């Protein structure tokens, strides 16, 4: 406020009084404006901006000093008003101050008296404004603190990880909503501070107390099982700025899914190892027999043995390549090159390729690719589709005994074009059908023991179908046969036309 000269408005209906005051005040460096009555003063207040002090006569035409006090306070509640009055009675003075005037100056007054009053008034106003600013600042801070606290609390309770804080004595001083979900026993009365032992999790107690007692900024971690879930618990000390340990904070993260994944992964590796070992064992034994002559010397039998070893080696190679494809799909390294494709052509090529194999087994392989309307082209990767169809036809021929038949049909409904491979083969039980897309799952019975397979073909088929946003359906009856139907989106449907 020292930056600019204080502004003073002098309101009096007497010109002599107005000008006299102006001269005295202007000489002291104040910026002075004048008005001839209350209404003119209000007008000045509105047009010329605020004034630090208003010096006003009480008796004026149109609007007097008393009314001006009230009107001014509506505009500026901190407006400071000094009343000049010739009728300087105690009554009017009290009345004026009651209405909000800061003080009064009885007429007549000397320039020094006027200046003294103005200076006091200005000082008073400055203090009043400063106090108000401080009060506002404090209120704002309080609000901020309250908001920050509620923000932290909200965030803490919205966390998916459980948070537990214990003090040096091992009493629970804070727990968030997630912790109450993980440990329902600790959800009751939020005001009580139960012993951490009450949680009945000795491992957790040991962990947090170890951190509390370490008296050093250590981090302790442990996997803890709670019910059917596994949690990774990380505990750290809560330190004062001085470095003193106040307690410990533990965060519980649910890693059940990760643990399951870990188990699935190691089971998968075991399965792969076993599936690789079985054909190798047969190949090894076959070679062994032929090379050592342990089973006698029969060239024809040796040739058969080598033939079987070769077949198993081929299966092994297919297994490795299926496995690589599956892994590529799982890791996202397998990308489809989609284009307009004719499912009929792909199916026909595949069926033709299997004609000899089917004939060898005396299995009739029939293709039906002529619907009432032309079959809609699909948007697909031809190589992937070839792999899908080959797997289905190969399985159908493999699992259909001599004299049976395999029927392949292509049809569509405009949205999807479908290939159905139906055989009169050995079929599957509902339980077998449910697992047929699992990796390494093979239906095992006296028939399948003689059929080489990797247990990965259909797992691969399903993934390729999924990648095309298609669907695969299986219908099967033991002893009667199976039907696999793969539906792939047409170009029209896939492109939204």
């Amino acid at each position: 406020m020292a930056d600019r000269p204080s502004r003073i408005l002098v309101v009096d209906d007497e010109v002599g009084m107005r000008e006299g005051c102006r001269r005295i005040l202007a000489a002291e460096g104040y910026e002075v404006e004048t008005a001839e009555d209350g209404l003119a003063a209000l007008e000045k207040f509105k047009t010329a901006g605020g004034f630090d002090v208003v010096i006003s006569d009480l008796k004026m035409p149109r609007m007097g000093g008393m009314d001006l006090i009230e009107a001014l306070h509506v505009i500026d509640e901190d407006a400071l008003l000094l009343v000049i009055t010739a009728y300087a009675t105690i009554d009017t003075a009290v009345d004026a101050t009651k209405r909000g005037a800061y003080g009064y100056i009885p007429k007549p007054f000397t320039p020094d008296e006027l200046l003294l009053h103005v200076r006091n008034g200005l000082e008073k106003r400055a203090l009043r404004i400063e106090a108000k600013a401080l009060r506002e600042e404090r209120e704002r801070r309080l609000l901020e603190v309250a908001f920050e606290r509620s923000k932290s609390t909200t965030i803490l309770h919205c966390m998916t990880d459980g948070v537990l804080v214990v003090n040096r004595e091992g009493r629970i001083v804070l727990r968030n909503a997630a912790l109450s979900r993980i440990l329902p026993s600790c959800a009751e009365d939020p005001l009580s501070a139960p012993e951490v032992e009450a949680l009945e999790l000795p491992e957790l107690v040991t962990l947090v107390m170890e951190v509390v007692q370490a008296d050093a900024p250590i981090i302790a971690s442990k996997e803890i099982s709670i019910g059917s879930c596994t949690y990774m618990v990380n505990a750290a000390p809560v330190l004062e700025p001085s470095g003193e340990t106040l307690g410990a904070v533990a965060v519980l993260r649910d890693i059940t899914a990760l643990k399951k994944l870990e188990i699935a992964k190691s089971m998968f590796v075991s399965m792969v190892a076993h599936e690789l070992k079985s054909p190798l064992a047969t190949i090894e034994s076959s070679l062994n027999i032929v090379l050592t002559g342990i089973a006698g010397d029969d060239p024809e039998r040796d040739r058969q043995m080598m033939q079987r070893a070769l077949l198993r080696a081929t299966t092994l190679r297919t297994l490795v390549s299926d496995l690589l494809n599956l892994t590529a799909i799982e890791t996202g390294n397998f990308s489809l090159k989609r284009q307009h494709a004719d499912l009929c052509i792909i199916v026909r090529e595949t069926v033709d390729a299997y004609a000899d194999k089917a004939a060898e087994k005396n299995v009739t392989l029939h293709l039906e690719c002529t619907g009432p309307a032309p079959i809609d082209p699909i948007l697909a990767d031809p190589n992937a589709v070839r792999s899908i169809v080959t797997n289905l036809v190969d399985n159908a021929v493999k699992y259909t005994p001599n004299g049976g038949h395999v029927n392949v049909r292509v049809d569509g409904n405009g949205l999807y074009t479908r290939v159905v491979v139906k055989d009169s083969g050995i079929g599957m039980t509902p339980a077998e059908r449910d697992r047929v897309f699992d990796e390494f799952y093979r239906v095992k019975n006296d028939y399948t023991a003689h059929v080489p397979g990797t247990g990965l073909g259909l797992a691969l088929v399903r993934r390729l179908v999924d990648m095309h946003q298609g669907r695969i359906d299986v219908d099967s009856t033991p002893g009667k046969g199976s039907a696999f139907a793969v539906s792939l989106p047409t170009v029209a449907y896939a492109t939204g036309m």
Partner: protein
Amino acid sequence: MSDVKKVLLVDDDANLVAVNRAVLESRGYTVTAAHSGPAGLVKAKADAPDLIVLDVMMGTNSEGFDLARALRKDDATKAIPLIMVTSVNTTVPFKFEPDATYLPVDRFLEKPVAPEALLAEIQGILS
């Protein structure tokens, strides 16, 4: 060998059965085969073999174990010596040893078993 000994091979791998059959037949054994646990039990009762060689992991991880216990419970088959051939020890995280109740077999061999090793085991038990 005074008379012809009969061996039943139970394994879901037909090729492995063929290999072992070749070796055993060349040494004068009569060989029959089954490719699943239930079929093995039927063959064991019908053929009354002098010895059974069986695989653990067939349709289920424990099909061989189940068959071994079923054979031991049946009066007609409980005296037949059993050799279990398997790679189960490499696929499950714990080791198996023959024991009277859970794994009532005479020999427990790790796959792959060299044909001569299997032959030696069979000769050892049947001589």
